[in-house]
């Protein structure tokens, strides 16, 4: 029988997020189906739904035409659905054979594990795959590529393997290793398995996939032929609305004020030394690859991480931030990247989330909070930032991601800061809310704030910033004026080796 996987109208909610929105697709045996989409398009949620890590809120999941409800990855594996993740799931201290037959080692009639038999069977699979490794070798002694192969063999060793999914499998492989992997995928394909291949490398998709299913913002956009569809068409489907004209319409001041903040040779355990300056009314972009040290720089500036050396000069006066509290008092505030774990206070309502940083100003001498004063601030914030909430007593996690983020920005703006640091402010936020944030950022700059915008989205950082600092290897790699910036320029700086200034 030919295998197949089908999703019918699958929807998956998390508090504040609709991760999958009415997704339907079919994948057939003997065919490689690629999943294509930007970060946050829902690919990883899809994989986790496929392998039973998540359960869909609604919709049907069919395996070989039968509806299934996996409660755990274990159940999915038992039913023949395996996902090979980016992070290796192998046990380093065990041998290749022990990993392949983990939990189902062959045993003799006394129940003793039969290593000889396991090695023999493992060898058969290894030969089948044409790999130069031994079943007795400990997995930690293998290269990353072979560790991944072990994982694939582990899935393959189940006679009932029906579906195998690969999550960006080539991320850390060399060209020769990719060739070996693709041969294996073709072999599995020849055996009629369903193969799902997640990647955003277009060249690979062309090479290995038959069809491409495209996702955007948790929605299924469509399936196209992997060989004949022009790349531009796929990208258009993936990105959807063009953001270009949003940036052009933004209301920006042409004049920028005097110097507001100067950072000199700032060093923490995680970044530096870094020097830069920020002027009043300026949007200063920080670009760079993930791990370039941008978040760490922000954390050092606000005293979240210990500063080991260097100076921070605000309005001509040297300041010392020993904690985010000090930084707030000095007028420097930070909207963190990970809203869920560092931004919102999930157990509290919208009102308390907005006013948490104003407790000192809003309470009397013996510490009693003036809720009337708070109500005014909250009401103004909800209006000014167009926060969509039925009322201020709603738990913040009930709001959509974009509205949660607005609450965090409102929290800080209520403290009348001089410098606002935004760390990936539009991550995981839908396009409509994004343009609202862009207008907001421009409004802040117009009011005379210095805005530091840390963003990995190149069009965003180029479209909004007056000046862009590119970081690499925990230091400044270069600086580009916003009007001269191109994606190529920023990328080449971001990937420059030294980065040390």
């Amino acid at each position, binding site marked *: 029988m030919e295998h197949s996987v089908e999703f019918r109208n699958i929807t998956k*909610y998390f508090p504040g997020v609709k991760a999958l929105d009415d997704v339907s697709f079919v994948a057939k045996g003997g065919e490689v189906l690629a999943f294509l989409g930007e970060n946050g398009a829902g690919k990883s949620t899809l994989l986790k739904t496929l392998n039973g890590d998540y359960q869909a809120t609604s919709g049907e999941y069919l395996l070989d035409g039968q509806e299934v409800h996996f409660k755990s990855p274990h159940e999915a594996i038992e039913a023949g659905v395996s996902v090979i993740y980016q992070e290796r799931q192998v046990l380093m201290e065990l041998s290749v054979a022990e990993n392949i037959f983990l939990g189902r080692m062959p045993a003799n009639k006394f129940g003793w594990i039969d290593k000889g038999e396991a090695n023999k069977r493992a060898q058969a699979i290894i030969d089948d795959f044409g790999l130069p490794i031994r079943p007795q070798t400990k997995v930690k002694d293998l290269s990353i590529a072979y560790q991944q192969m072990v994982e694939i063999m582990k899935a393959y060793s189940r006679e009932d393997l029906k579906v195998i999914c690969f999550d960006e499998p080539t991320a850390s492989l060399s060209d020769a290793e990719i060739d070996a992997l693709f041969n294996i995928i073709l072999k599995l394909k020849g055996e009629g398995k369903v193969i799902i291949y997640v990647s955003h490398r277009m060249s690979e998709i062309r090479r290995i996939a038959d069809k491409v299913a495209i996702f955007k913002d948790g929605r299924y956009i469509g399936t196209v032929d992997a060989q004949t569809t022009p790349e531009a068409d796929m990208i258009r489907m993936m990105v959807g609305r063009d953001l270009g004209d949003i940036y052009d319409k933004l209301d920006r001041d042409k004049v920028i004020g005097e110097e507001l903040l100067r950072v000199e040779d700032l060093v923490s355990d995680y970044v530096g030394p870094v020097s830069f300056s920020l002027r009043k009314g300026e949007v200063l972009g920080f670009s760079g690859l993930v791990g370039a040290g941008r978040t760490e720089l922000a954390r050092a500036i606000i005293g979240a991480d210990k500063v080991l050396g260097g100076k921070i000069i605000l309005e001509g006066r040297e300041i010392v931030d020993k904690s985010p509290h000090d930084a707030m008092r000095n007028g420097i505030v930070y909207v963190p990247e990970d809203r869920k*774990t560092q*931004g*919102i*206070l999930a157990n509290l309502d919208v009102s*308390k989330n907005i006013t948490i940083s104003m*407790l000192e100003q809003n309470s009397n001498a013996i510490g009693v*909070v003036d809720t009337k004063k708070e109500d005014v601030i909250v009401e103004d914030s909800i209006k000014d930032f167009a926060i969509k909430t039925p009322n201020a007593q709603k738990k913040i996690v*009930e709001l*959509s991601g974009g509205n949660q983020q607005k609450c965090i920005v409102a929290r800080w703006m209520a403290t009348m800061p001089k410098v606002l640091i935004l760390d990936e402010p539009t991550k995981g936020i839908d396009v409509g809310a994004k343009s609202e944030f862009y207008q907001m950022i421009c409004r802040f700059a117009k009011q005379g704030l210095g805005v530091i915008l840390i963003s990995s989205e190149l069009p965003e950082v180029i479209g909004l910033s007056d000046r862009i600092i590119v970081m690499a290897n925990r230091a400044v790699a270069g600086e580009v004026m916003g009007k001269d910036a191109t994606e190529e320029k920023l990328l080449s700086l971001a990937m420059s080796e030294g980065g040390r200034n």
Partner: protein
Amino acid sequence: MEEKKSSMVWRRVKSLIPGDKLILIVALIIVVAIFTSLNSNYLSWTNFVNILVAASLIGLVAIGHTYLIIAGQNDLSPGSVAAFSGVLGATLVSLGLPFLLAVVITLLAGVMIGFFNAWMVNKIKIEAFIATLVTQFIIRGFAYILCDGRPVSITDKAYLAVGGTRFLTIPLSVWIMLVLIVIFGLILAKTRFGRSVYAIGGNKDAARLAGLNPQRIITILFVMMGVITALGGIIFSSRMHSGQPAANVNLEFDAITAVVLGGVSFTGGVGDMFGTILGVILIQAFNTGLIMVNVPTFWQNVARGALLLFALTSDYIRKRNREKMLLEASKKALASN
């Protein structure tokens, strides 16, 4: 017709008292009804006062636990600290120190113990559960060392008055508990300190980035717990007419059970003092009832364990319901966007 009327009354009651508290009150009524049916002396003013007196120490410690558990912390040392404080107070007075000075020194010892707990949690980064287990052992040890293992009897009149005095027929120890519960309940609900406690219990990192100082708040909470427990230990020893190094074992167990019954969640950031007072009364009504219907001591332990299991289970169910409601609400919010 009849049914409609009763459902209206029910709705009225529900609007006055939040649902989770109503369940506690119903549970209390059931407990009282069961024990009354088994022993008719159970439902009487005298016994009610007895329950309150017996609950007074648990109630004081439960104040501290309410704050600590809401802040995402815990404390397993109060039983030892209360016993130690009783022994210390009794010893100081027997050495000839004036009662008030003995109280001040004992409360200062409570402060030091609080600082020690906070130091372990903040600086050595030990989980509060384990850190305070350390304290539990050390302080119990000191309680024995201080009096060489023998109870210290109290003859000082002022000292004995604490446990003996009544005001409007209710013992002073009960008044102290009630007044402190109200004061600390108001602090928790109305002040910026209370608000900060909820914030750090919900998410310590986010609270710090929002400009709060979690370590300082945690220190204050442990010190507060130390002082309140020391006070409770003095009152308890006064009632017993002696400082006993072996006293108050499992005190924290009863207090934590009461607090969790009252709706404070182990996940942190949730609960209030009104729930705690109900929980305290409920657990002492239960414990006293077990004694009055002659349940053997060992079986009392089993029953108390079962009660904590019940409390934790209802905490779990409440949490699951909260999550379900959140998911539903955010679905609606997203649909309307």
